[in-house]
Each structure stands twice: as C-alpha cells, then as structure tokens.
C-alpha cells in the first residue's frame, strides 16, 4: 500500500488537526500535504497531484464546500473526504449529496479515516 504513494492533502484551519492527521496518514503509507486554508491549497502546486482531499467544512474565508465547488469548476476531479467538528447529524447527508465520498465527525477513529480515504482512492 505504501508503494502506491497516493498524495492525500489535508485542508483545515485547526493546527492540531494539521499536525496530527498527516502523521497518522503517513503511518497508513500515504504522502501528505497540509494546508491551513482553501486559498492556500488552491495557490499551491499540489492541486493537480492530490489524489484525495481531506477537507474541513467550516473555515474562515473559503469553506470546504466552497473549495469543492471551485475544484469542480476548474474540472479538477479530486475525491473529497469532509471532516467537521460540528456534530450535527444533518451535515453528513448534505456533504454526501454535494459529492463527498465521506463526512467524518471529529473526533473520528483511525479506522474510520482509513476506510474513508481508501474509498476515495478506490482501494479495497
């Protein structure tokens, strides 16, 4: 699995997520890039290389769904796993409707994360 070297990008305004998630994803064997905002990600060189995007929903400035729309607009087909600290049951269906592969409510377990990322990458 580690040989595939899929690039997973993490976009979250929360620092502890940006620090902890990449380490876990690396443990799973993915290459990881972390960004503190949607704008920062869009401006980076990793948009085209990213295979899976782990995207926080509520962020200052451009939100997670905003970024997803923007990517679709730019015809960048990146599978998205939404994450959010708002534990609202109604959020997940909405995100899946928007085209998210999964929507994880923080805090989530490592297996939930791995399953979601694998789903996004089509790995079974």
């Amino acid at each position, binding site marked *: 699995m580690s040989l595939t070297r899929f690039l997973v990008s993490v976009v979250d305004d929360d620092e*502890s997520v940006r620090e902890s998630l990449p380490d*876990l994803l690396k443990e799973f064997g993915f290459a990881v890039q972390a960004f503190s905002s949607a704008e920062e990600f869009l401006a980076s060189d990793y948009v085209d290389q990213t295979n899976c995007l782990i995207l926080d929903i509520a962020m200052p400035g451009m939100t997670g769904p905003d970024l997803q729309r923007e990517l679709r607009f730019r015809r960048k087909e990146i599978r998205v796993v939404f994450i959010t*600290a708002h534990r*609202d049951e109604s959020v997940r269906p909405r995100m899946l409707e928007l085209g998210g592969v999964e929507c994880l409510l*923080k805090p*989530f377990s490592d297996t939930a994360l791995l399953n979601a990322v694998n789903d996004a990458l089509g790995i079974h």
Partner: protein
Amino acid sequence: METQSNSAGGENARNESGLSTEAVLNSLKLIFAGAPLSEVLTIIARLVEAQRKGMLCAIWLLDKDGSHFRCAAAPSLPAAYIAAAGGLTVGPRGASCGTAVYRRETVYVSDILTDSLWDDYRHLALPHGLRACWSRPLLSSGGAILGTFALYYREVCHPRTSDVQLIENVSHIVGIAIERHMKEEALRRSEARKAAILDSALDCIVTIDHEGCITEFNLAAERTFGYSRDQVLGKRLADILVPPSLQDKHRRGLERYLATGESRVLGRHVEMTAVRADGQEIPVEIAITRILLDGPPSFTGYLRDITQRKQAEEKLRRSEAFLAEAQHLSSTGSFSWRVATEDITWSAELSRIFDLDAPLTLARIRTRVHPEDLHVFDGAVDWARATGNDFACDYRLLMPDRAIKHVRVVARATRDQNDQMEYIAAVHDVTQSRLSEEALDKARMELARVARVMSLGTLTASIAHEVNQPLSGIVTNANTCLRMLAADPPNVEGARETARRTIRDGNRASEVIARLRSLFSNKSTAMESVDLNDATREVIALSLSQLQRNRVIFRTELAEDLPTVKGDRVQLQQVVLNLLRNASDAMSAVDDRPRQLLIRTERDDGHRLRLSVQDTGAGFDPRTVDRLFDTFYTTKQDGMGIGLAVSRSIIERHRGRLWATLNDGPGATVSFSIPLDPDSVSDDHSVGGIRTAAAANAPQVMRNA
C-alpha cells in the same frame, strides 16, 4: 205660640206682635245687599226697640268655643254692661242668654233681682239698671246655635203674647242675616283660597264654560301666554290660545262632547300646540277636567309649557342616539350597578354583547361567562362588594352558539344621590383585538422559542466545535502514537512526539472550557442609582398585556419613599421580569381559583431593599427547593430552566440573595433582597457566603412567608 200670619198686618201697618212689613223688607234688602252684619243687626235692633218703649235690644253671637258671647249689636245697652257680659257663660244657670243656649229654648226672666238663673250674674246687670231680660237662642237652618236675641227692661217685666211673637219673628230674620253672613264669609274665604291656589299654581289653569269662553285665567297662564286675566275673561278660548290650524278641531271636539259626551282629551294628558299673545307657538302638555256642577258643563284645563322639556328630551334623545351609535361602533356597552339593591341599568349595546334581553341581572350575566373564567368574574364581584374600589378585569363569554367573546370590564365606584354605592362600568368587546393579539402573540412566542432554542443550539454547537477540535487532535494523535509503537521496529521518537501533542491538545481543550467559563461569568455591571419602584413599574408596563392575557389579577404594593439602590438597572429589571413571567406561568394551569399576583417592594433589614413576587400558582416541591435555582432545572414543560439561575447570578452580583418560599395558601413567593450599596457589603457577606446562606435558609423559611 201664635202663627206667623198674625205678624203680617198689612203694608206699613204696625203689628203688636211684630215688625212692619216695610221694616222687614228693608232689613232683608240690607241683608241681601251685602251690608256689613253689624250694621244690619244694629238696624234690626233699633227697629225692634222702636216697637216697645223702654225696651233695650241686643244680639249676641256665640263664640267658637260655644260657651261665651260676643256682642253683634246692642245700640242701647250701656257699654260697660256689654263689656261685663263677656264673662257670661253657657250653662243651666247662665243668666238669660247662657241658659237659653243651654236649654235651646227662649228664657224669660222677668225680674233679675229674684230669678235664680241670674244668681251668678246679678251683680253685672243691676248696677246698670237692668231688671228684666228675655233671651231666645238663634238657630241656623241646620240647627246649630248661632247666638241669642235678647230684650232687656229697666223694670220688672212679664212677656205678653205679642212679645213672644215679636221675639220669634225677629229672631228668624236675625238668624237668616247671621247665617247668610257666615256663608258669605266662608265663600269669601274659599274664593280667596282658590285665588291663592290658582295664582300660586305652577301650571297654567284656564277654565271655560260650555260655549268655550274663558272664565278663569291664573297668574301662571298670564305669564306663559302673555295675556292679562282681564284681557281674556269672556273671550273664546279657541280665539285666544288655540293656533289657527287647530281651531276647527277644538270647536268640533267641544261640540262633540256637548252632543255625545265623548271626548278624546278629557281626563287624559295630551300634548298639543298653543299660541301665545306674541303669536309664537309653544308645545304644551294639557289635562282637562269637567267641573262637576249643575247646569251646562264647564271645564278646567291645566296647561304646562313644555318647550324646555321638549328641548331637553330632544337633546337627550340625540345624545342617547349618539351614545348608542358610539357604543355600537366601539363595541362598548355600559351599565350601572347598585350594589345594595343589585339594580342594574344597561345600554342596548351591552345586551347585544351578552346577547341577553331585559332584564339584565348579575345572575343572568353570569350565565354567559366562560366556565373557566367564572373565578375572574366572581372574584371581581366579590372584590367590588367587599372593597367598593374601582376594578378592571378581563374574561371570556361563552355564547349559546359556542362562540367565545373576550370582554374587558372597567368599573368606577361612585355614590348615587342617596349615597348608595353604585358602579358605573364600561364593557368592551375586545374579541377582535384579542384574537389578532393572540395570533400575534403566538407568532411572537413561537419566534422567541425558536430564537431561544436556536441560540442555545448555536451556543452548544460552538461549544462542541471548540471542544471537538482538540479532541479530534487528541484521538488522532493517540491513534498515531499507538500505530508508531506497534510498528516494527517501533517508532519511539514519533510516538513520543505524538504523545506530546496529545498532551498539548488536552490542555487546549481545557483552555477552551476555561474560556467558555469566563465568557459566561462576571461581566462588569453598569452600576448606577436605581429607583427600584420605577424600574419595577417599567417592567410591569411591559408585562401588563401578557399578565392580562393570562387573566392574572394583578396587584402592587410598592413601598413609598424607598431609597435608591446602587445597581445595574437593566439587569435588575431582567430579574423582575423573570419573576413576573415565572409567577404568571406558574398560574397558567390554575382554573379553580383566582390567578392573583402580588408584587411588593419594601425596606429590608440592614440597609437593604426587598422585592417579592407572590403567586397563587402550582408552588414547588419543598424537597427540590435547593435545585430551583440550578441552571437547566425547570418544572415547566417548555422551559429551559435558565431564568432563575440567571436571576440568581444577577442578584448575587449585586451582593444580594434570591430565595423562594411556599405560601400559607396556594402558590409560592420568590423574593430577592439587595443592599443599597453592594460596595459597602464586607467580604464576609460576599457572593459565595450569601449563596450558601440562601441555599441553607430557604427550606427553613419556606412556610414563613
């Protein structure tokens, strides 16, 4: 006794037994000419004296007391005797006259010196040379004794037959003269009385004879119609007082009555038009009666100028019409209620609102009151009866068609002319405005509830968000850490790093909690001088409509001359508002007793003020009293349980305390007590201490309030 014919001896002839015919005729003429009685009687006395030499004639009238005499004529008797004879009284031994009256027969005393009838009076007569006295009682036609006719002699004298005849004849004439005089006197008096009555009568009195001619026209009639009595007497009424347009009718009416005895006006009060001397027509009320006398009928008319009454009636009618219209337009009925007699006077609109026909009584009105609001109605009635104070209340009516009306009653206590308690009240049908108010209120409450739930939801969400972020980091780090340690070989350095981050995120989470705490805790309060009564009144004004809607009977007892307190006006008002709402809500399910709410301010011990709100609601379970003020604790189904907790924190910020007690009767009282100046309270009585004291004391004082 001889017969009357003996006295008539022919014209101018002297008759031994009587007066000449001429003398009799002369005296009769005088009598009927209405000459004064004394003059007539004196002439008769002189005529009689001329009949007999040495005879003195006197006519005595009996006083009203029936026992003394008054001289009517005695041309020849000594004045001194006339005066002395005033002492003579009627009796069995009353000289000649007194005995004659007593016996009702002629008494002949031939010798005063020896006759025992004069025993008591001899000393009066003898000094004046009177020796004999014959006296005959004068009788009226009805048999009453008018007086005596007396003949005196200066020597002993026995009556002859002719004397007896003379006495009888003359007495007859004298009797006629006196009786006629008395009748005339009575008639004169009665005429005078009638004139006085006529002239002092407030109504116009006009009498007419059968031809319609005026025979009497009193002072009031003169004033009203502008004619003098003399101007109209003998004139035809139709020409004087009846307007031209009605003259024919008047004549026909009079003719019809005379012909058939039918009348449309006789014996009734009729309103018609009359005309005054200046030609102006005036409305009059008239009553005509027939004067009951023999002969052709005559009539008395009593007339009253009712111009002013008509004007007043018209004014009243207009004002009543205005009032009725205004009442209808504003859906406001009115009534007056005399408490003592239960008399109720009501307007048409009131019976429309209640849909009740006359007569309205409290009992009948009560049948329309909604069963759930009967306690409001009864409470108001009892209150009115007990206190005699003004009152206002709102209640619902349940109409026969099951429709519900809302009415507002405002009643003012007054006293009528007899100083009896009487309420004047307006009843306003507020159904329309109440329905829209209720709709509005429902919308507003829904909005408020949504807003409250929303804001709390938002708050919870943001709290969750703030906490979930570091939690998420902690979980992820811990997972990473485990995986690093589980690797072969274990990545100890990485695990250490993630463990460190786990600790950091744990600290972050606790920082979030600390930040939240500080967010909700002591904000600096805006301290100013607060008039607690003023602040309370503002809150009451804001809450009034809600209280009325909840049919709460509301009372205040705000102590006068309360000093101001140093505090945050808005926050204290929030507390008062909270207590009012809680009390009102606590009574929302109460239907078996009045929903009474009393808000009271007073001075408390040790430079403090106390405000308490007392309700007749559900009260609370004493076992849970210490939880009442806990956040999120509520006895209300839709409550959030925040109100009392917030109130307590505000009061504690003012270094006061807030507590609840159960009433002796139903319901609870929630009170707070705050120092006039929180800064003057030493730290010993600081927030924490007071809170403990309040919590500890509350259960104990519960039943004392």
